[in-house]
């Protein structure tokens, strides 16, 4: 009797499992094959590129139904290590491979004497966000931002802030700066900006880990946005696409205060020189955070990294097609819409296109 009863339960469970296991409604289909590309591409790396990759992958797979691309948003360090060990076909990373890492070589997916292609395909402005009731924008110079995050400016009514924001009613409230608690490219780029633009106040080097014990810490962009939103008198930094309804800071560049925008972010990348001594398909940038023109200096640039020569020619063809798509105006526009990144400029597009040509 018991066996019968449990048999019945098992049957129900089985039917349920089969029903559940039937293919997902949005998969399969695709009777016509508009492209002859097929295969599987694996990428891993920065979680900052995660949302953009999702968009790119969706568009690319729609155009090439026989191709499956996966991207593990496991983190830049993990992405670089995986690519180095040959565990992925391409990597997404918040910083390019350094000279010594390139010299050490040993990229397992690449042919023996192959170099690696590093392309700055994801440019995203980092917004300085704050939560002060009734205030939507603030004008601040680099020294003031550095002072707030270093913990030397502790109240919203501080002379340094009010003098730059006449007519804005700031409350007598303690400032709670919020930084990332995890090791991240966003922090590295933000501290790099502070170190370059306010060297007298911010005496620490650029680092992915927040260098001092001051203020609050929160995990990931989502954590920082949550902490700033839920706190009072909070200020933090996060990917601009996530600024939402929070107040944002316009940064003093030369004589003007520049709010974040995609164009202004792309402008600072254009104004920056490439790292010297690299082959022409390695477009690593030496970001210049102190431009004198209309540019927004707090940007995160993520690189897509692939081999110059792959061991497997079929993979090379896939990578090439995918990289070409990502760099294309359509690809950049899709990422801009899906992930809020800044499209690369035409000048950079030409350099990137030339670099992708070498993949083989």
């Amino acid at each position: 009797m018991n066996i019968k009863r449990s048999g019945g339960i098992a049957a129900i469970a089985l039917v349920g499992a089969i029903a559940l296991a039937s293919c997902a409604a949005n998969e399969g289909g695709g009777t016509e094959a508009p492209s002859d590309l097929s295969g599987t591409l694996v990428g891993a790396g920065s979680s900052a590129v995660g949302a953009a990759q999702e968009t790119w992958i969706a568009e690319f797979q729609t155009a090439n139904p026989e191709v499956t691309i996966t991207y593990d948003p496991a983190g830049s360090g993990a992405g670089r290590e995986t690519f180095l060990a040959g565990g992925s076909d391409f990597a997404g990373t918040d910083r390019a491979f350094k000279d010594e890492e390139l010299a050490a070589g040993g990229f397992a997916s690449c042919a023996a004497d192959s170099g690696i292609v590093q392309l700055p395909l994801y440019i995203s402005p980092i917004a300085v966000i704050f939560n002060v009731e009734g205030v939507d924008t603030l004008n601040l110079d680099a020294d003031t931002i550095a002072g707030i995050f270093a913990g030397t400016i502790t109240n919203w009514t501080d002379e340094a802030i009010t003098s730059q924001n006449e007519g804005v009613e700031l409350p007598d409230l303690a400032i709670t700066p919020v930084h990332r608690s995890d090791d991240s490219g966003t922090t590295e780029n933000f501290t790099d900006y502070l170190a370059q633009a306010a060297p007298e106040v911010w005496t620490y080097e650029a680092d992915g880990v927040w260098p001092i014990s001051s203020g609050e810490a929160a995990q990931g962009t989502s954590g920082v946005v949550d902490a700033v939103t839920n706190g009072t008198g909070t200020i933090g930094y996060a990917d601009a696409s996530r600024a939402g309804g929070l107040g944002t800071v316009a940064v003093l560049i030369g004589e003007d205060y520049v709010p974040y925008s995609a164009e202004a972010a792309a402008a600072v990348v254009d104004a920056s020189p490439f790292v010297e001594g690299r082959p022409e398909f390695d477009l690593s940038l030496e970001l210049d955070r102190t431009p004198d023109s209309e540019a927004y200096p707090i940007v995160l640039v993520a690189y897509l990294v692939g081999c110059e020569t792959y061991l497997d020619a079929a993979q090379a063809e896939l990578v090439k097609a995918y990289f070409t798509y990502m760099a294309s105006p359509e690809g950049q526009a899709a990422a801009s819409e899906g992930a809020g990144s800044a499209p690369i400029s035409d000048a950079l597009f030409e350099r990137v296109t030339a670099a992708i040509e070498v993949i083989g």
Partner: protein
Amino acid sequence: MTTSATTGIANSLTTGRLPKWAPWGLLAGSWAVAAVIVALTQAAGEPADFNIVAAIFFGTILFDIAIVVLSALIEGSRQARDRLVTSLVVTAFVVALLPLVSLLFTVVVNGLARFDLEFFSSSMRNVVGEGGGGLHAIMGTLLITGMAAIISIPVGLLTAIYLVEYGRGRLAAAITFFVDVMTGIPSIVAGLFAFALFALLFDDPGIRFGFGGSVALSLLMIPVVVRSSEEMLKIVPNELREASYALGVPKWLTIVKVVIPTAIAGIATGVTLSISRVIGETAPLLIVAGFTTSMNYDLFAGRMMTLPVFVYNQYANPGTDVQVYLDRAWTGALTLILIVMALNLIARLVAKIFSPKLGR
């Protein structure tokens, strides 16, 4: 369980007892008093700020004190202590219910937004922004956790039997000790270990597959199964075993037919707990099972998505339309809870079917 008061000189069975309605009346009174006090202290502020949580909290404390004092005056110190413990126990229960209710409320309210057919019939392949679902993650979670259970439950249960019924001497001591140690493996280390193990075994530095996730989860699950089953087997009275031996039943049959059925309710609880413990793990699965937006039914090849990774990723790396991603995250969380609830029910059913129809 009526206990008669025998304190004092009066010999009647009803003297020195608080009337039955006294605790309830006292509780209502305390809450009312606390509500008034809270309202008064907050009178300066907005009336909308009335803090019902604080009122109930302080009211309950007031009740605890009042009932003890009253009981001590009327019923004597032994009854007062009993009242104290009763009210503390009930308070503990209410206190524990508050976060549970708050949590379930949050998950259900937020999760219902996307709790629709599409969520359960589609994956995230080629989905950007709205739509999409978690079918791939649901399948992945069921397969990976199921495999982990298939590995862990026999190993864990047999080990517990060994420890309680057979194990004497050094080996048993070592196993006991090391099972304790195993409870201290941080989940992420289990993931790293499984990854390193399979990368070595298959000589593939980028290996990601569902079975690896099952192995990592098993490492976390086994100690919970062993420890809880061990406790349950231990409290099976020796008289039962001896009675069975006296009837000439072999030891192994005694264990299978007498000891395990007696303890089955506890064992089932322990096993369910262990599944609950691992089904929500994120970090190890991200490392070894990977991340994908497509369906995958094969535990032994290819990346596999799981619900916790899905939830975490939707929360941590959203695109521009954050709310859509958050809705999916909450629905994923709700689904996960429902799955474990179902498992819980099955475990109870199993316990009911197999446990002896006697006793409590």
